[in-house]
């Protein structure tokens, strides 16, 4: 089922949670709502679920206006951040809940309910846990019970609020790959909220980057990472070196380096900010390869497979950070206090009006 959000706004008292948000989600897609806390991503998810009513705008499911519909009529499954399992009920009864509250004529027989619950528990790899109480399960197991419970009513849309937020790093990684496979098997439209960019980039078909109640960018993980639309997206999606310079008629200049900035053809000698990811900064002992930023090495820190090199630019005193492979480092023979030349491979240039 496709979802369309049209110009949705929502306020909580004086706080503006969502400000004219529009978003289209195709049937069968897995979409991540990514943003810092307070960006409105959870409010948007709750509005799609019907747990919150928007002040303005509408929500459509497969073209049908569902804005005024109660959550129970929308056919959505919702997985809560803290699982919200029924603490007084066993795992079995938690999963069976959605079937037991069906109207009498739609309600399956007791045998059918048991069969369905065991199917779901085996789907989420919790066979044999049916008799446990939620408090006897680990965080990852609770999360999977919550998922099985939401899937029991065969929702056409699955909504997950920070599904891995309360889990530790290792469980989290395993579970999100598993969720991706599950989504592919079930072919249900899924939307999940996260503040973890790595999670969004790894799991989702498309990522919706949100900030202060607005959408900054919608795109595939590769698009938002490689062609960020705004400075916010660059900064939120990972580490970046910030360089200050000027842009003039489509040409940006940062110290010794000049780069094309075709999106700023109209800019006339305007202040500009350039972003370079640490792994896009190429290091050399001389500037034979072309114009580069001269810098002094301040720290060389190996981090597993890569090495992080902290530098200080000679001209401006600005801090620079590069990530190189161990192999490159050995070839360069870098040590603290040495002179290096840093040449950016990829840039993101934003003229002042875009810059926050």
């Amino acid at each position, binding site marked *: 089922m496709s979802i369309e959000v049209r110009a949705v706004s929502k306020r909580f008292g004086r706080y503006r949670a969502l400000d004219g948000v529009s978003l289209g989600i195709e049937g069968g897609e897995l979409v991540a709502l990514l943003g810092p806390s307070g960006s409105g991503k959870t409010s948007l998810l709750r509005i799609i679920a019907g747990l919150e009513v928007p002040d303005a705008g509408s929500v459509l499911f497969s073209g049908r206006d569902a804005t005024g519909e109660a959550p129970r009529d929308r056919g959505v499954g919702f997985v809560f951040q803290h699982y919200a399992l029924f603490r007084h009920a066993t795992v079995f009864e938690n999963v069976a809940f959605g079937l037991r*509250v069906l109207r009498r004529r739609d309600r399956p027989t007791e045998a059918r309910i048991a069969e369905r619950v065991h199917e779901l528990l085996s789907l989420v790899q919790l066979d044999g846990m049916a008799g446990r*109480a939620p408090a006897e399960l680990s965080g990852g197991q609770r999360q999977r019970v919550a998922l099985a419970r939401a899937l029991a009513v065969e929702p056409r849309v699955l909504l997950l609020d920070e599904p891995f937020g309360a889990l530790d790093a290792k469980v989290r990684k395993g579970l999100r790959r598993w969720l991706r496979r599950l989504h592919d098997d079930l072919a249900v439209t899924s939307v999940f909220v996260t503040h973890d960019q790595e999670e969004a980039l790894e799991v989702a078909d498309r990522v919706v980057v949100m900030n202060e109640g607005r959408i900054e960018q919608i795109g595939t993980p590769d698009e938002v990472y490689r062609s960020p639309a705004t400075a916010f997206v660059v900064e939120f999606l990972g580490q970046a070196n910030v360089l200050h310079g000027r842009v003039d008629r489509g040409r940006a200049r940062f110290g010794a380096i000049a780069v094309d900035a075709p999106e700023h053809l109209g800019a006339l000698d305007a202040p500009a900010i350039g972003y370079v990811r640490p792994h896009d900064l190429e290091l050399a002992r001389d500037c034979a390869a072309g114009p580069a930023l001269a810098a002094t090495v301040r720290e060389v820190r190996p981090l597993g497979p890569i090495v992080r090199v902290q530098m200080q630019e000679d001209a401006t005193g600005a801090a620079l950070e590069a990530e190189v492979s161990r192999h490159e480092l050995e070839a360069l023979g870098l040590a603290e206090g040495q002179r290096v030349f840093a040449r950016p491979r990829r840039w993101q240039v934003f003229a002042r009006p875009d810059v926050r």
Partner: protein
Amino acid sequence: MGSQGRTRRGAVVTDPERRETLARTPSPVAWLLVAIAASFLGLFLVLPLVAVFAQALAKGLGPALAAIADDETLSAIRLTLMTVAIAVPLNVGFGLAASWAIAKFEFCGKSFLVSLIDLPFSVSPVVAGLVFVLLFGARGLLGPALADQGLQVVFAVPGIVLATTFVTFPLVARELIPLMQAQGNEEEEAAITLGASGWQTFRRVTLPKIRWGLLYGVILCAARAMGEFGAVSVVSGHVRGETNTMPLHVEILYDGYDFVGAFAVASLLALTALATLGAKSWIEARGPRRSVA
């Protein structure tokens, strides 16, 4: 996942052990504190309780039982039980509604409503009784109109029920509000997204969540309703065999120098108090274990 669970559980186990070794070596100060607490309890709780039963049985079991089997005593017991049977369900209904509203919704005047619920605790029961006399008495605001309809409130059973309900009004709500606030809304929201109606959500999710707190509130409310003296005393008119509840009957018997009778009825009240205490500690021991493990 598994190994982490085990280490976490392991860490939890070592902690209480350490606490136990601390508790196993009581210092003189601990002994002193225990002695003070024990003698205080003995003097103010155990001794009076023993005295009540001793007085009741001063002339043997026979006279005590005869005093209880007396018509007027039986009528007082009936009236008390009836009052409890009306006041407790009323306050359960009210307490559920009020705590649901207060814990689940934001509205203006909420803190005012909370303090209003506490009013019966802060007002002297005698004043509460007087309020009902002023409202429903022969010269009261509503009394004459109701009397025209043939309904007597003050110095009759309705007045006793009203006064008791008023005095025990906060007990269920007070028990439920903090519980429901602490438990939050997420389980109810989950139930709604799973297709449950409002009533199904209440019956299948909210009620099981609060059942121990509710039961606790009901027991406190029933105990208080049985023992209420002040407010009921003002509105009852002390008509023997008609508007006498158990506490009022104890007073009448005592004033009439029928000590065996007075203490026999009093020991019935004391027994219900002990039963309440037992039920309360049973719930406290059982409730949390059920909801956590």
